[in-house]
């Protein structure tokens, strides 16, 4: 349980407390951040003795086991060392930031983000599950983005944040892909399972791809060449962030990942070649560029890149001592680089500039800062007595001892020498240019830094010396445990000490120190370094080009597609569907089925002809709207006849009724909209739409043809056989609706009701006022009214008949509802809709609700009886005049359908009928009313 608490303390307690206390002043916020961190550190320290003795803890809590994602945590030597670095340096950075940030800065936000990052970083080093690790990994990218862009007003900060996020986040995606591939091979995402299945994974044909993806993830995070350019850009972050994320912890995550996966990857030739080559290149490149940076933080950034390359190189080598040197240098670099960043921040804070060309002679004003910067820079350069010297010695020894690496064997010693000399040169420059050289045009007289701002850097400087002088009493146990976690227990006997006798590495150290100093002297006095203009950052430029390019392309694409024209959107949607529909035809071709089609019957051809005339006519005459409505109605009627002819009486009735109400609805709307339709489509537009329409029609026709000429396999037989025994009805369609698929129908009447409610609400506020004329469509309203009244009783009787017999004969709730609605609406139109509604005051919404409730209750009745929802019971009483009535419980359900459909139809039509015309409409526009 300890590990999750260690991770969660900063995340929950830290962020919450800092946000709560931010108004109580800087110190309160700093304490709020520091206490949870210290508590986590104490908890971790409590675990340390066991881990140092060689134990390792694994704990798993199931999260999404089906997807291989679990809360699995692991604490071993490697995690312990990183955990101490994260929490220890985190604590110092919290203290430092309290004095670094200015009163304008939002300190609560700063600390909260820092805590978020800390948790994410701890999560990475303690994760046992690869997916969980990735989650934390991306969380560090995200919090790093927010922290780099902390000064949101600065364009450089925003750009740097974007760049860092794009590179490290992109690398994270590559890592995800790599993890997924390995996880697929291993069948698990637990790291221990990966290590067990090591041989299976490494012999899999996809392993090299996965390896490449994982390496991209690690290299981007650890700023390796050619992905390094985001790190200098990230220096726009507040200095505490640079010290913490971009030197001590986050950039080490890539190194950590490879160390963590070392049991899986180590010894693989591809891994070894790629990692050592990239590491060595990065090391020399970073050190070279660092010499020419004038910005203090820029120098430190490139120096960090160089040191990360060094660590990468060591980690790539296939010897256990090199891995030990790698983890050792991780710790050393974190201490001296963090303190150097802090010193740089102090100088910036007190002098107002970080430009080394302007800074100078600061040892007079800040003697203490000078001393601690000298200590840290010496460690960076690899001067004896400081911690950097020890790991660099080991690095030299490894570089001289290469084998089986072909070309690299010869290049490496030279490259290592060069890189180390550059490293010395920029370290000397840092000290000389800032503290001893002549100042030039300083913004203001340097202040003395606040006492406690120096404390964190001082502590780190003391660590540098303590480790450098007495390694055995300080870090060796931790480094040893960490290395054992990486390479296993086959660590040879070794000794980390200040004095190892005269050896080639010592000579190399001496050459590096001497050569580096000479290089700096030459650069300063022969080349005139201060006049050097840094070359363009190629990586950064390329990134910016790619970034702008992507944004540009995306913008143009968006503008082309989203030009605000709904017609274009619809055309695009239709085109896409046409493409999808055409795909199978392309693949399988179009061939007719084996069933011979029947010869068309002459009456069928006549109806068909009428429908075609209707459809084509509606298109031809659509500018004259009323004509188009009538012609479109012909299509509906023809469909009704087709249904009747092809043995679907229920459909025929429903289609007929719906066609009538739809036509009514369209005519009502016609009175409310301007007309005729103005001719405005260009020839091109017409051609485009015509092509789309013809293609859509042809596709549908071919599909129908393909189906209609093939034999049918249907589930229909089940329903035909069971309709009577199970559903108690002869009309299978009705039984399907109210029984077999009753739940579906229940949903449909609800949808229908919602549509009608929406119609009603959409027209809210348009009812009642203004000129309103109830459409009557009759020259003489009197005759129409009388006829409607006569028809009413008859129509209602038909509806009742349809409803009662629907279970056995064509009919049912839907048809009956529509017919009754028609009868009533005719009544309203005869009497004048508004007057009528004012009289009667019926709320059709209640009908809809009531219908749904009745249908639902009927269904529930069977639940009460212990049967599934909507199961029906049967009774067939014989009633005089009507004959045998199929009285089933489903009839209650059908009653609900009937009422809901009635309510829906009436609500839709009456809402539209009550709308007043738009005042601006001319009398001519509304002529269809009279």
């Amino acid at each position, binding site marked *: 349980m300890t590990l999750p608490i260690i991770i969660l303390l900063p995340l929950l307690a830290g962020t919450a407390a800092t946000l709560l206390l931010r108004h109580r002043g800087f110190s309160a916020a700093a304490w709020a951040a520091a206490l949870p961190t210290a508590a986590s550190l104490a908890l971790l320290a409590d675990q340390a003795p066991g881990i140092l003795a060689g134990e390792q803890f694994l704990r798993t809590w199931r999260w999404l086991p089906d997807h291989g994602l679990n809360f699995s945590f692991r604490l071993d030597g490697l995690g312990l060392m990183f955990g101490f670095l994260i929490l220890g340096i985190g604590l110092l950075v919290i203290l430092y930031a309290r004095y670094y940030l200015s009163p304008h800065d939002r300190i609560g936000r700063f600390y909260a983000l820092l805590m978020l990052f800390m948790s994410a970083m701890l999560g990475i080093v303690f994760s046992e599950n690869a997916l969980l690790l990735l989650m934390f990994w991306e969380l560090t990218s995200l919090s790093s983005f927010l922290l780099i862009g902390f000064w949101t007003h600065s364009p450089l900060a925003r750009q740097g944040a974007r760049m860092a996020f794009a590179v490290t986040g992109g690398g994270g995606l590559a890592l995800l892909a790599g993890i997924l591939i390995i996880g697929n091979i291993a069948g698990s995402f637990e790291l221990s399972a990966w290590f067990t299945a090591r041989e299976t994974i490494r012999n899999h044909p996809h392993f090299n791809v996965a390896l490449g993806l994982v390496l991209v993830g690690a290299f981007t995070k650890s700023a390796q060449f050619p992905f390094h350019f985001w790190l200098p850009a990230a220096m726009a972050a507040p200095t505490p962030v640079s010290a913490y994320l971009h030197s001590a912890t986050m950039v080490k995550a890539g190194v950590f990942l490879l160390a963590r996966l070392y049991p899986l990857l180590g010894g693989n030739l591809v891994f070894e070649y790629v990692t050592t080559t990239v590491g060595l290149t990065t090391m020399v490149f970073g050190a070279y560029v660092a010499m020419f940076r004038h910005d203090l933080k820029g120098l430190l950034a490139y120096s960090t890149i160089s040191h990360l390359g060094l660590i990468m190189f060591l980690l790539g080598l296939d010897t256990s001592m090199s891995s030990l040197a790698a983890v050792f240098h991780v710790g050393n670099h974190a201490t001296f680089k963090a303190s150097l960043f802090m010193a740089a921040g102090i100088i910036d804070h007190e002098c107002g500039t970080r430009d080394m060309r302007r800074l100078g002679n600061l040892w007079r004003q800040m003697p203490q800062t000078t001393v601690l910067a000298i200590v840290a820079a010496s460690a960076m350069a690899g001067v004896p007595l400081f911690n950097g010297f020890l790991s660099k010695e080991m690095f030299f020894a490894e570089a001289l001892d290469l084998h089986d690496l072909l070309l690299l064997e010869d290049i490496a010693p030279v490259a290592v020498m060069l890189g180390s000399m550059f490293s010395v040169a920029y370290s000397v420059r840092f000290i000389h240019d800032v503290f001893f050289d002549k100042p030039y045009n300083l913004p203001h007289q340097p202040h003395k830094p606040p006492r406690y701002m120096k404390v964190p850097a001082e502590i780190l400087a003391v660590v540098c010396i303590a480790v450098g002088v007495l390694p055995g009493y300080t870090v060796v146990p931790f480094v040893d445990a960490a290395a054992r976690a990486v390479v296993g227990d086959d660590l040879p006997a070794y000794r980390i000490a200040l004095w190892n006798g005269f050896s080639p590495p010592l000579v190399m150290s001496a050459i590096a120190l001497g050569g580096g100093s000479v290089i700096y002297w030459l650069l300063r006095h022969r080349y005139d370094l201060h006049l050097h203009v840094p070359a363009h950052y190629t990586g950064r430029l390329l990134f910016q080009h790619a970034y702008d390019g992507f944004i540009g392309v995306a913008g143009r694409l968006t503008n082309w597609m989203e030009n605000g024209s709904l*017609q274009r959107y*619809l*055309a695009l949607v*239709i085109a896409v569907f046409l493409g999808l529909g055409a795909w199978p035809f392309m693949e399988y071709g179009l061939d007719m089925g084996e069933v011979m*089609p029947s010869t*068309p019957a002459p009456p069928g051809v006549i109806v*068909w002809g009428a429908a*075609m005339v209707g*459809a084509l006519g509606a298109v031809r005459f*659509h500018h004259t*709207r009323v004509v*188009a409505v009538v012609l479109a109605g012909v299509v509906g009627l023809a469909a009704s006849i087709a249904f009747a002819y092809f*043995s*679907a009486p229920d*459909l025929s009735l*429903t*289609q007929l009724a719906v066609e009538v109400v739809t036509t009514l*609805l*369209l005519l009502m709307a*016609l009175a409310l*909209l301007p007309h005729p*339709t103005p*001719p405005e*489509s*260009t020839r091109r537009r017409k051609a485009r*739409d015509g092509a789309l*329409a*013809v293609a*859509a*029609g042809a596709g*549908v*026709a*071919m*599909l*129908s043809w393909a*189906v*209609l000429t093939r034999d*049918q396999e249907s*589930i*229909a037989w089940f*329903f*035909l056989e069971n309709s009577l025994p199970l559903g108690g009805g*002869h009309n299978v*369609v009705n039984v399907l609706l109210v029984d077999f698929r009753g739940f579906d*129908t229940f949903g449909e009447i609800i*949808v*229908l009701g919602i*549509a009608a409610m929406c*119609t009603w609400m959409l*027209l809210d506020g*348009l009812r009642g006022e203004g000129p309103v004329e109830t459409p009557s469509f009759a020259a003489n309203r009197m005759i129409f009214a009388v006829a409607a009244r006569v028809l009413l009783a008859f129509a209602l009787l038909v509806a009742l008949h349809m409803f009662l017999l629907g279970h056995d*004969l064509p009919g049912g709730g*839907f048809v009956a509802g*529509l017919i009754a609605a028609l009868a009533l609406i005719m009544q309203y139109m005869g009497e004048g809709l508004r007057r009528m509604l004012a009289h009667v005051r019926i709320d059709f919404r209640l009908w809809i609700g009531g219908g749904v409730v009745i249908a639902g209750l009927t269904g529930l009745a069977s639940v009460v009886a212990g049967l599934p929802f909507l199961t029906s019971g049967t009774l067939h009483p014989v009633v005089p005049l009507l004959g045998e009535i199929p009285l089933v419980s489903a009839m209650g359900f059908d009653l609900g359908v009937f009422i809901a*459909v009635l309510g829906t*139809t009436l609500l*839709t039509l009456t*809402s*539209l009928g009550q709308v007043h015309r*738009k005042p601006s409409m001319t009398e001519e526009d509304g002529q269809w009313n009279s």
Partner: protein
Amino acid sequence: MELIMAVGIGIVTACAVYLLLRGRTFPMVLGLSMLSTAGNLFIFSMGRLRPGAPPIVAAGTESYADPVPQALVLTAIVIGFGMTGFVMALAVRMYHQTGSDHVDGFEPVPERRPEQGP
């Protein structure tokens, strides 16, 4: 019979799609309503065309039309009405609100002189 049915569904679909792509709301709604008719006929024809065999169970009858597409289409017809009503209400509301019955909600500025329509 199958041939004219397939061709008929195709032609109605084509006309409906063309109307659907018009710029004014009314022809668009008309196209939508026509498209539902075409769609219903299409789904219905998936049960094949069988004259004189309504799916009403009676003793001694062996041949029945497929009731499943019929049941699906029946509700679809009614829902189609609900949808037409809703879209029509939307069009009316938009016209009141924006003063234009163009689908984009404003009168288009013609780029080129439109052809003379009927």
